[in-house]
């Protein structure tokens, strides 16, 4: 080991990205490709009666306009295809902004204008657009991906009735959209032999391949290859597979030409899922000493008329604090909106309620918010009705250390607990905190590692680089285990011709792929050492393999005997290829976030002026990219708390702000510099060199921490994000 793992190594793909050399999906120039553009429905519920394509077909450059009449029949794939139907298979319209026609033209501009010329007549029914109007129709949806929407342990109702202290409130968050900067894009190329290649912006090439294969099962392609070497962000929007990918593949086959589709920003607001609107009705029961005796959370989320999938689970409610009586019910109400989906740190909606309620409880009891959390800390994974697993200790959980480290760095001890007492000029200063936590997943992954005759290594795996640093960290892990300079390792990702690997979602990339890379590197090193010691031309000839160490590209044994990867492989004259696998398990990462806000209550002006975090993510693989995740998570947390909000028209169920000039996300001026501390203790339960999944943990506590800081600043409790200035007046 050369100690590369853990270092804040700069991104190996940084130069390619900033110079434009990195080829993102839509940068792929496919000879002869036509341009597609979707015509979206302008009603939310009903059916298409007639589509007049004459004007569009007459437009210069237009090759074809497809409708449900001529779109091939496809099969609805399983999860992670996100919809219970495929559009353009029949005349039905399920939401505003659903594809109803697909224009193909020589240029993008021609396709766009022809799409404007397609005239669609509908038979429309009045949609149900607002959750508030139909809350009385909330129901408990069926289990989704094997998971029940009702879970808990003990008897929360009885415990609440007997509780010495109770907190009860409703916490709500609006519909939100992922808004990665790179739009969704697919280029579908059918080869003469029936092989389909997709240049796709996807968080999971292997999943996309699988979904497309399922969709075309009635007339299967010979093979499907999905290529996605870089993503300009995903945030969950590119995790599941969506209709535009299937439709583009179908259209390219019909047209007999490659077709490139790039969704417009407005189309992304109805094509790729969103975070559903949520209300969490929460009740906490506790003793006067602040021990939780009951947590009951009944949430209501938007689902659709056709499905009841709840994507944002309430894991922290069930597991974060020691509490014998917990009851979680996740209800849905059916609206005529697109199916929601996972969106960056999906558990944030429930966690925002829990962490605000904890602050309310601390205020009620007169116990410091950090102390209250410490009193309810648990080191065991608690049993639940649905979970089935018996209670067991976490392999590592250093949350108490996170509280301590972040509180000290922040100066929390100096906080006057009375709300509205800290002023600076005409601003009120508020300090708030929250626990951060998120589940991370794991998906069995495989890695192929090749050492070439030049002695350099290439790692291949069908994982993805979604902006988080996958290329860098995997190269680090491989170089470290091989004992090679970082520059001698190349990592290749995002291609289904490489061994199948995890989706880059659910914080599962590192837990899934690092172990296999490390295993592969170990085998490759052993294989090269074996070549050396068996080779009479090697200075290491005859040395027991166990006595050879690899370092900086050299293979060394005692007595100044040594060889190099380059020389061994040059003599060998051919590649050495090995594969690596290493199953892991899912789990949780933890942390604490402390924020300072400054508020001018007369004008409702609020600034977040300081953020300190401390996280326990197991072993830190790269301090720089880990810090990047914290900065990104905190920034999105600020967006969640202060501005993000998709508006849907109550009459037409159509998104009113489908663009980045009216769907606000934080700009630099909204985001203070973040002090990010790490505990950095390997988790013995994790097979990823002790590292856990982490990407979605930072930011989970930020909305509550900001709300709690607002309460501390001005004594007002806000429970409904975004906290816009009208709520602060």
């Amino acid at each position, binding site marked *: 080991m050369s100690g590369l793992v853990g270092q804040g190594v700069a991104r190996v793909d940084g130069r390619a990205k900033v110079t434009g050399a990195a080829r993102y999906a839509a940068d792929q120039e496919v000879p002869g490709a036509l341009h597609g553009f979707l015509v979206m429905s*302008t009603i939310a519920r009903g059916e298409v009666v007639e589509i007049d394509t004459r004007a569009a077909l007459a437009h210069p450059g237009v090759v074809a306009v497809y409708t449900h009449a001529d779109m091939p029949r496809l099969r609805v794939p399983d999860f992670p295809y996100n919809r219970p139907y495929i559009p353009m298979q029949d005349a039905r319209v399920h939401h505003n902004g659903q594809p109803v026609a697909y224009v193909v033209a020589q240029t993008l*501009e021609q396709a*766009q*204008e022809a799409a*404007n010329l397609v005239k669609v007549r509908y038979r429309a029914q009045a949609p149900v657009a607002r959750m508030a109007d139909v809350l009385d129709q909330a129901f408990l949806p069926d289990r989704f991906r094997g998971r029940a929407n009702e879970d808990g342990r003990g008897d929360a109702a009885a415990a609440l009735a007997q509780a010495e202290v109770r907190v009860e409130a409703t916490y709500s968050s609006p519909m939100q959209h992922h808004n990665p900067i790179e739009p969704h894009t697919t280029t579908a190329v059918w080869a003469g032999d029936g092989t389909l290649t997709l240049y796709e912006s996807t968080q999971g090439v292997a999943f996309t391949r699988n979904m497309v294969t399922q969709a075309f099962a009635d007339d299967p392609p010979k093979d499907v290859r999905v290529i996605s070497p870089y993503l300009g962000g995903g945030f969950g929007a590119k995790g599941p597979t969506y209709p535009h990918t299937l439709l583009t593949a179908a259209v390219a086959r019909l047209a007999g030409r490659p077709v490139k589709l790039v969704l417009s920003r*407005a189309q992304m607001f109805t094509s790729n899922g969103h975070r559903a609107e949520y209300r969490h009705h929460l009740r906490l029961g506790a003793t006067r000493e602040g021990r939780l005796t009951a947590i009951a959370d009944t949430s209501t989320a938007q689902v659709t008329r056709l499905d009841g999938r709840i994507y944002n689970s309430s894991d922290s409610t069930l597991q974060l604090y020691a509490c014998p009586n917990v009851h979680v019910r996740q209800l849905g109400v059916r609206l005529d909106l697109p199916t929601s989906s996972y969106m960056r740190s999906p558990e944030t909606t429930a966690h925002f309620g829990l962490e605000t309620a904890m602050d309310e409880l601390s205020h009620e009891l007169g116990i410091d918010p950090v102390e209250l959390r410490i009193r309810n800390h648990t080191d065991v994974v608690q049993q639940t009705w649905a979970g089935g697993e018996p209670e067991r200790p976490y392999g590592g959980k250093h949350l108490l250390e996170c509280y301590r480290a972040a509180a000290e760095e922040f100066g929390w001890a100096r906080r006057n607990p009375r709300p509205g007492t800290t002023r600076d000029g*005409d601003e009120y200063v508020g300090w708030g905190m929250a626990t951060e936590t998120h589940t991370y997943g794991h998906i069995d992954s495989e890695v192929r590692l090749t050492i070439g005759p030049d002695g350099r290594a290439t790692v291949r795996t069908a994982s993805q680089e979604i902006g988080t640093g996958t290329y860098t960290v995997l190269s680090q892990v491989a170089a470290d285990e091989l004992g090679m300079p970082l520059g001698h390792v190349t990592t290749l990702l995002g291609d289904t011709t490489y061994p199948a690997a995890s989706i880059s979602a659910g914080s599962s990339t590192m837990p899934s792929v690092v172990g296999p890379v490390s295993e592969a590197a170990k085998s490759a090193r052993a294989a090269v050492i074996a070549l050396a010691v068996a080779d009479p031309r090697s200075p290491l000839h005859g040395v027991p393999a166990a006595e050879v160490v690899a370092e900086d590209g050299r293979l060394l044994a005692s007595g100044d005997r040594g060889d190099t990867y380059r020389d061994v492989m040059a003599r060998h004259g051919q590649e050495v290829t090995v594969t690596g696998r290493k199953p892991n398990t899912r789990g949780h990462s933890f942390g604490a976030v402390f924020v300072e806000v400054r508020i001018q209550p*007369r*004008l*409702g*002006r609020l*600034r977040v002026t300081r953020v300190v975090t401390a996280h326990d993510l197991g072993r830190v693989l790269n301090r720089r990219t880990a810090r990047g995740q914290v900065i990104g998570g905190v920034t999105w947390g600020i967006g969640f708390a*202060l*501005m993000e909000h998709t*508006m849907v*028209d*109550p*009459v*037409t169920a*159509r998104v*009113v*702000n*489908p*663009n980045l*000039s*009216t769907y*606000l996300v*934080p*700009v630099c*001026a*909204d985001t203070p510099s973040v002090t990010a501390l790490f505990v950095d203790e390997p988790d013995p339960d994790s097979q990823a060199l002790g590292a856990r999944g982490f990407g979605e943990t930072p930011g989970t506590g930020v909305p509550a921490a900001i709300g709690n800081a607002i309460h501390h600043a001005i004594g007002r409790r806000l429970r409904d994000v975004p906290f*816009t*200035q*009208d709520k602060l*007046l």
Partner: protein
Amino acid sequence: MRTFGYTVARSPAEAVRIAASTSAPAYVAGGTDLLNLMRDGAQAHDHLVDVNHLGLDEVAFDSRRLRVGAGARMRQVAEHPRVRREFPMLSEALLASASPQVRNMASIGGNLLQRTRCGYFRDAAAPCNKRTPGSGCPAIAGHNRGHAILGGGDHCIATHPSDLAVALSALDATVHLLGPGGERAVPIAGFYLLPGATPDKETVLRPGELITRVDVPRTALAGRSRYLKLRDRATFEFAVVSVAAALRTSGRVVRDVRLAFGGVGTRPWRDLRVEDALRGRPLTVQAIAEAGRLLVRDAEPREGNTFKVELVQRALTSILSELGGLR
């Protein structure tokens, strides 16, 4: 976006001539608003006349006024040292607008004629009286947080989004025009129209008229001015409420005051009654509060923007207190 013709004009007269001889023309300067509107299908033109090379980019001072060419860029005006000194509110209003990239591109003329950010207006598939006369106004019963509480009606409640226009209203600027019928000058107070029953008609501009420049009178008052902008994020966002204020006092008594408001009106909002209520009186919190109440006396708030009634009064108090040294 439909196919359109494009000509670069070399003089104001040539620009007007080309516009007069083409169908459905539009002038294009920075294009930071026009091109988005065309892409979104909110506006369609057959011909664009590029007005970036007309020699109209002066920022000049003479003894009586500041002259700003219609082609001057927002950044150029905002960062001009004499504009900063003599017209702080003008510089501040521009610096509080958009982003550095947009300000580098966007012109003064284009800024004054930018269109509302009402989401229904910019969605070609939605009804909207301003875009498609007679189709209705979904904002009234729909999302109207960003909309006007003053000067609206049953036909349209969209705000005019320009910060610059608010400052120029407070400063009594004059807009100079050149059209097929010759030159004319329109005081900014008469430039923007209330929506009434014809919200598609936003200004008194006649077909084919070109803005050539804006004149701003130089006064001592203008040097004692500020622009306060409240919005939903720290930068790069339109006003929820804004106030442009200039104030001259002697002792505590208000000698002169100019006020204009953004984010609350269907046009840049100036209400002389509010200024009259302050002029000649001691500047007190109470006097400001009374003036503020006068401002919102005829306000017609909707579900989503009721808070603006209170917020604009507080903004007025804040900016006048600061200018008048009240705290």
